[in-house]
């Protein structure tokens, strides 16, 4: 009885601390996971463009769509209390210049939307063109709104 009470208390404490951890680290972990997924999909297309893998139009379109799914809701994961912690590489400029940050996200959404709208790319050159338009948004945003920490 005593033992089960003790373990029950331990479990409750664990649950509580887990809950706390989620409440504080949630948006940082979530936006990292989303960005990682966007990066993975970028790699699928990027490797075709770079010449490391063979051109596959269907797979490229699927990657664009997956990128869009992963990116959805990304901009909402930067509440005021998530400026620091969790080894975030988010720049304080996100909060100082919210309008600029959101405009950069919107631009990415539009360029990605256009790439998805045009369907399966006909050949590598078509893919290079759409990738150029979509991928320029990575560095555009990372120039102002990310800080490298390692």
């Amino acid at each position, binding site marked *: 009885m005593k033992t089960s009470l003790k373990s029950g208390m331990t479990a409750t404490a664990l649950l509580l601390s887990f809950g706390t951890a989620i409440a504080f680290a949630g948006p940082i972990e979530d936006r990292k996971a989303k960005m990682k997924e966007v*990066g993975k999909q*970028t790699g699928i297309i990027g490797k075709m463009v770079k010449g490391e893998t063979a051109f596959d139009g269907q797979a490229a379109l699927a990657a664009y769509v997956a990128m869009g799914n992963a990116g959805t809701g990304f901009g909402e994961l930067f509440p005021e209390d998530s400026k620091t912690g969790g080894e975030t*590489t988010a720049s304080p400029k996100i909060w100082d210049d919210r309008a600029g940050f959101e405009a950069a996200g919107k631009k990415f959404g539009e360029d990605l939307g256009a790439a998805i709208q045009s369907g399966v790319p006909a050949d590598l050159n078509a893919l290079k063109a759409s990738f150029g338009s979509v991928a320029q948004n*990575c560095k555009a945003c990372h*120039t102002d709104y*990310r*800080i*490298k920490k390692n």
Partner: protein
Amino acid sequence: MKRLMKWFLAAVVLGLGVFWWLSEPRLPLESGVGLSELTDAEPDLTKGERIFWAGGCASCHAKKGASGDDKLLLGGGHRLDTPFGTFVTPNISPDKKNGIGEWSLEEFAVAMLHGVSPDGAHYYPSFPYNSYRKMQLEDVSALYSYLMTLQPVARENEPHELGIFFSWRRSLGIWKRLFSNHKWAVEVDDSNSSLVRGRYLVEVLGHCGECHTPRNVLGGLETGSWLAGGPAPEGLGKIPNITPDENGIGSWSDADIAYYLESGFTPDFDSVGGSMTSVQQNFAKLPKEDREAVAAYLKSIPPISSK
């Protein structure tokens, strides 16, 4: 007691004299040699443009975030936040009043190679003359001719906002004596033209070491940790290790490095960011063999683990 005072005063005067002599913005004897012949040569603007992009002039002297032809409007005005204070980059457009429009080639060369202004004052090393000092004279001349073809910008210069200990330019003469030298950071095989070119692009024109090599408390480069990264000398965050160490870019192939400089993508398709974006865009404008030369050099240097 009186005698002791005399000796003390004499020592102070002597000390000041030595300081004055050491900090004098005088030029090494070799300056000026050959420049007069270069003035008469037909300006090589194609070469000048290549030096301009490799040297990264636009990254600090064009407006922040400028793209396309706006990268050629060199009115300055970037604010560089450093541990020593805020440096405001100057106007280097050929504007006659606020830029360098009235400068002679010789004045330009002295500024680029020795960090001394036409009116004889030391420049702060936020202007990377410590890297540029090994520039070939014909490259200085070609760059000068190219800069003079650009559109003048009227923006007036602003003073730097520095801590009291750093606001006296004369003391930079001592700094230069401590931290300027003509030695290469890395010895390379002189018969390998790609390595020689790569070293010139990285150590001199691209001035990569100014950010990628850590600095000591006085702001001098810790050359023993050449390109091993460290705290950003300007702004926030850290600068990556770009030596072939496992903490650096040891896993990148030559082709990966060249592709990064062309496209801005790392081998796992993370993108370039921060102040490196502009540098990468500069390198994308260079001929392919220049990016390959940088890659060859970076693969050849000693691997150093980050601190």
